[in-house]
């Protein structure tokens, strides 16, 4: 492809570098500031360097497997009977996710800065696997921090990382998940900052990370835009992307932000406590069994968990009579069948999260 992989100019959607309205900035211990400044300088220089761009393009093509196809999902489109559905197949990249786009870019930067030790955080393990893979490619030492709870849940990815030569360090503090892995990686970075690059996988953290990670991911949207124009001769009505750390979604959204007619929809999992609060709010307002049943749906909670929460919060007397599940996908308030009243349709969720 002739186009540069990351934007070359100084032009940025943000007015001040690293600021996104009230968000962004650089809030880290002083020890890390000079490392972030060094990274920012290296990145600014690299993006104006044709050789860097060419090397990244080449790695993305020959190693990661870009461009990924935009696939028309004919049967899904027919089944749902609404919009024509296309899938941007980032899952076909090496290591099975878009994460590798960013890892390759940052590894090239680390090489330019002369830092041969890489640390990273991972939740489900996708970013850890991509980092371990890229470190194996470049011959870097690699340490991945992962909450012990996540390690238990994602055993296979832990095995893959170790197979690739990475050291996976379990994090026992706090909730033993992604947030704590990030904290521990930061502590490592504060200690070994002179020799180590922190390969952050999400559009978060201190400047320049959010901007830089975004820039390494917008290749997704650039390809998708050309591909949909080629396939349909028009822009899509809407783009839907899942949002976790945000790199996948901003990667595909970025090139469509100025197209006001393209709806950009981020889908994210409701956390259990947030779901509980939505449920409590709506359940308290219920005047009928029908509304009550609807509140489960809004909250995406299982019936038993909802009832337990309600009882815990307001006492057993406030919990409405048991609602029975008559057939998959339908809920009926107890006794409602005698009143020829069919309950609201509720789509069951078979799985949540990754």
């Amino acid at each position, binding site marked *: 492809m002739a186009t540069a992989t990351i934007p070359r100019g100084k032009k940025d959607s943000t007015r001040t570098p690293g600021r996104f309205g009230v968000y962004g900035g650089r809030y880290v211990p*002083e020890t890390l500031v000079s490392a972030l400044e060094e990274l920012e300088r290296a990145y600014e220089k690299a993006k104006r360097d044709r050789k860097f761009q060419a090397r990244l393009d080449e790695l993305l093509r020959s190693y990661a497997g870009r461009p990924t196809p935009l696939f028309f999902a004919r049967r899904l489109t027919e089944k749902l009977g609404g919009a024509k559905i296309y899938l941007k197949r980032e899952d076909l990249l090496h290591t099975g996710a878009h994460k590798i786009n960013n890892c390759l870019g940052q590894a090239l930067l680390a090489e330019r800065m002369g830092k041969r030790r890489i640390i990273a955080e991972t939740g489900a393990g996708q970013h850890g696997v991509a980092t371990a893979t890229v470190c194996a490619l470049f011959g870097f030492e690699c340490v991945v921090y992962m909450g012990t709870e996540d390690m238990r849940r994602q055993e296979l990815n832990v095995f893959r990382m170790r197979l690739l030569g990475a050291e996976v360090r379990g994090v026992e503090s706090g909730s033993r998940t992604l947030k704590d892995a990030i904290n521990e990686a930061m502590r490592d970075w504060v*200690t070994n*900052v002179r020799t180590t690059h922190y390969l952050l996988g999400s559009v978060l953290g201190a400047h320049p990370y959010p901007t830089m990670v975004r820039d390494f991911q917008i290749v997704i949207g650039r390809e998708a835009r050309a591909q949909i124009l080629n396939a349909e001769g028009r822009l899509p009505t809407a783009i839907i992307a899942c949002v976790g750390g945000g790199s996948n979604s901003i990667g595909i959204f970025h090139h469509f932000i100025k197209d006001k007619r393209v709806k950009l929809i981020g889908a994210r999992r409701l956390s259990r406590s947030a779901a509980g609060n939505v449920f409590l709010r709506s359940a308290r307002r219920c005047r009928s069994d029908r509304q009550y049943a609807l509140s489960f749906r809004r909250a995406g909670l299982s019936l038993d968990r909802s009832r337990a929460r309600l009882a815990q919060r307001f006492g057993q007397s406030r919990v409405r009579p048991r609602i029975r599940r008559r057939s998959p996908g339908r809920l009926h308030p107890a006794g409602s069948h005698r009143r020829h009243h069919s309950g609201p349709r509720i789509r069951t969720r078979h799985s949540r999260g990754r």
Partner: protein
Amino acid sequence: MSLSFQKRPALVAYVTCGDPDLATTRAIVLAAVEAGAHIIELGVPFSDPVADGPVIQRASERALRHGTSLEQVLKLGKEVRSKSQAGLIIFSYLNPILRLGLTKFSAALEDAGINGALITDLPVEEAGDYVREMRKRRLDTVFLAAPTSPDERLKQIAKASTGFVYAVSRTGVTGARKQLPEDTRDLVRRVRRHTKLPIAVGFGISSAEQFAAVGEFAEAAVVGSAIVETIERNPGKEPEAVAQFVRQLLAGTSQLSAKQGQR
């Protein structure tokens, strides 16, 4: 009232507030001052203490488990002030302060008679609003200087700081270490080129020998994790244990400080 550094080295003692509980923290602080600590850093427990080692992480988790908040720490500061004239500094991450609001925060500091604050994850570039609010009420803003800070940044850090400058002895998180790194002295020398303020050295100081060694080139030494660990190890008799530890720290330097005091 301003921070006093009449003794050399002065002892800046850090405690995580609310560990094991706020009433005990108050007793610990008063006992530490009684035993000779000159400045107390009142640590606000935070859920993601990225600059802290395991000892202070554990203390923060314990303090948060029973809901210790910034408001409660400020109230604690006010109570201590009513009984003691020691220097008091709030030591916090930015998040709790941002949630309270900078204006409310500085007003509460003034009301409580606390001298100032040190925010671990607020570098000078981001500190404009905070420094303005604090200046309005003549509160001290202490900033960190790190071994990795180039001279240009040290200049900015010195300029934004009042009260004292906190020199981080090494790259890394808080926690006791056997030896002080060589470049600490060098960092203090570099900071001194840009300021006449007293300089406190912290991170890793846990013994009387280290404390005395810092006194040779800096006005004050900060001891944190070693005090928090003393609290952790002595349930039920925390204030006495901390007082004894503080006296031990200061014992080796009493003669030195008498000499220095005459200068």
